[in-house]
């Protein structure tokens, strides 16, 4: 029995158990004189039995599937005549060819070793037995537990509580998965960073002003000696993010004010979704917009004004386009918080003879400010983490400069360049990427934490 059939059978089995248990609860209730004698609704009795049938069976299936491949492989290897003399990679190759032959015998005409053919036939046999045993065991589990549950259906049984507990545990489990993944990421980055810092001192990394991560891969090679001062990267990130925020905050805020306070309903219904489309454009598209349209425009403009040697890659182009990309973050969140300011405050202000603009400036914006700040912080962490636009428009040169017309590079871009291509994963060069990642992670984590805290404070104020 193959896996699909098995699963379908299991579904059918649990459905049957669901149905019969529900019936059983109903008929027991009838004997007592009505449904209100049941502890839970009949549906819950069905669901309880169904869970009892399906969950143990699925657990068995999962455990079985984890081990069966390994065990079968063991058996095959042991049956080979000279397995103990082979190295592990030779053994791997051998097993591969056995598996291939077993999957479609005849197609590989070169296989002539009778031992392989024999082993392959054995493998096919084993697989068949394995599938049958698996199906049998799973279904037996399903039937036994389902039947036990069915017999236990009785008016006093607290079926609803059981079902709710099971679902609650499922919910808990899923949230746990997310948390576990996060923790896993943090630790992997942390350990690799520690390895990096055992080679390069932390202070060199954090305070060094020279970044050139090329190291000689083998002795005698002409290459950089490698220097890992990350300050130019931090500065570049800061510069580009600052430019992006200079574009995004005023534009986003003002459009939010327009949309929520001045625009009439029809304009708002059209403009707001259009603005939000900006957030849906892939960053790579922004990247080539920045590299092919904005950067050359800036360059030719500056040359027209009289600058010389303007680089075609600049922090200004990358930051500007990135700013456009995050406008919707700022405007959408600000629009939401501005809308959440109760109208009674506006009325209070108008009632004192304030004009619309005074009301917006002195009452609405201050009342919405914490929420707006939260939105801006989220946008900043988005800007810091952005890679693609910078790769395409700001260049790779790790210049330590505050001039927005020069080419700079950012933390994320360097992570990418450190890791692309064939790399050994234990040279300081690649490990540096993890250290940079750690810094990035810490910064955005802090920003998000503050932002969420601020936004939450704001919510509490009005809800």
């Amino acid at each position: 029995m193959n896996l699909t059939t098995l699963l379908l059978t299991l579904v059918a089995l649990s459905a049957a158990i669901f149905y019969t248990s529900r019936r059983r609860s109903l008929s027991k209730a009838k004997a007592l004189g009505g449904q209100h004698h049941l502890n839970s609704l009949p549906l819950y009795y069905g669901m309880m039995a169904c869970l009892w049938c399906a969950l143990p069976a699925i657990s068995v299936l999962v455990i079985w599937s984890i081990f069966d491949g390994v065990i079968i492989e063991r058996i095959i290897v042991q049956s080979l005549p000279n397995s103990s003399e082979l190295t592990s990679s030779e053994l791997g190759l051998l097993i591969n060819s056995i598996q291939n032959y077993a999957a479609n015998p005849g197609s590989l005409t070169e296989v002539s070793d009778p031992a392989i053919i024999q082993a392959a036939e054995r493998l096919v046999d084993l697989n068949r037995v394995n599938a049958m045993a698996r199906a049998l065991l799973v279904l037996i589990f399903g039937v036994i537990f389902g039947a036990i549950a069915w017999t236990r259906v009785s008016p006093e049984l607290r079926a609803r509580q059981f079902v709710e507990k099971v679902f609650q545990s499922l919910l808990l489990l899923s949230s746990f998965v997310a948390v576990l993944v996060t923790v896993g990421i943090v630790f992997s980055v942390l350990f690799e960073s520690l390895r990096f810092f055992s080679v390069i001192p932390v202070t060199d990394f954090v305070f060094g002003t020279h970044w050139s991560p090329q190291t000689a891969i083998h002795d005698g090679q002409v290459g950089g000696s490698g220097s890992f001062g990350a300050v130019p990267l931090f500065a570049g990130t800061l510069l580009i993010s600052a430019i992006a925020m200079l574009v995004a905050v005023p534009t986003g805020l003002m459009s939010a004010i327009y949309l929520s306070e001045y625009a009439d309903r029809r304009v708002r219904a059209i403009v707001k979704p259009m603005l939000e489309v900006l957030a849906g454009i892939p960053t790579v598209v922004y990247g080539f917009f920045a590299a092919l349209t904005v950067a050359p425009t800036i360059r030719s403009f500056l040359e027209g004004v009289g600058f010389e040697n303007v680089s075609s890659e600049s922090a200004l182009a990358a930051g500007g386009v990135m700013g456009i990309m995050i406008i919707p973050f700022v405007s959408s969140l600000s629009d939401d918080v501005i809308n959440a300011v109760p109208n009674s405050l506006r009325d209070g202000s108008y009632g004192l003879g304030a004009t619309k603009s005074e009301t917006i400036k002195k009452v609405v914006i201050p009342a919405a400010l914490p929420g707006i700040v939260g939105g801006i912080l989220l946008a900043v962490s988005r800007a810091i983490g952005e890679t693609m636009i910078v790769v395409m428009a700001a260049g790779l040169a790790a210049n330590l400069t505050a001039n927005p017309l020069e080419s700079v590079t950012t933390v994320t871009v360097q992570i990418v360049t450190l890791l692309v291509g064939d790399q050994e994963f234990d040279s300081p060069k690649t490990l540096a990427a993890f250290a940079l990642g750690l810094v990035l992670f810490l910064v955005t984590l802090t920003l998000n934490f503050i932002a969420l805290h601020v936004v939450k404070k704001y919510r509490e104020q009005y809800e």
Partner: protein
Amino acid sequence: MNMATNTAETIGDNHQTVGTPFVDNAKLSMRNVNVFYGEKQAIFDVGMDIGTNEVMAMIGPSGCGKSTFLRCLNRMNDTIEGCRVEGDLNLEGEDIYGAKLDVVPLRARVGIVFQKPNPFPKSIYDNIAYGPRIHGLVSKRTELDEIVETSLQKAGLWNEVKDRLDAPGTGLSGGQQQRLCIARTIAVSPEVILMDEPCSALDPIATAKIEELIAELSENYTIAIVTHSMQQAARVSNRTAYFHLGKLIEVNETEKVFTNPDHQLTEAYITGRFG
């Protein structure tokens, strides 16, 4: 429009406001006022005066248009989309809806206090100082301090908050917040104060304080107050206006309205037969 015919049947087509809607020393005078929300008419041909330094109570069943009418008096209805006001409304002979009139000084002259206290999320001091600041009433900090103090004193809140003027206004109790809102209104020295059910969110003790305050304020201010409490109307007002389905049925001396009303609808309402 449907509503118009229904009303006409119950009240009588040539409904005349009975009693004494007009006075000699009118601060506000309204004639032939009609208000529409889009297609729907909410106020039908209302005419009345509010005298100088008078307290006018407005009563009537829910939805009869009291708030709508009150909000016409300082053009707060302008902020509602689709709301249209017709008729002559005058503040000391000046056309409230005239093309020349600027709503900003109008609202400074005719202040409004709402049903739910709505202090700004600022300090107590800044709440009061808001109006004087936007109108440029003061040039020096000491003058502003003085306005804040006298306004709070007039609103009967000074003793409770004088030590914490920097605390947020939203942190006060409901009754204190409402007095803060009244103080905020007083701070721009209006001539008229409109109050839309100012006590409906308050307990009896806070209500009593506000009523006391209204009595004191009536020496210097003209007050129009919407209320659902007939006892309150009886306690604080000089004259009472009874609204019914968007029409002004009766205006009379408060005592007369509550003892011997001229119109049977008024009588039905005050004796609790509907509303």
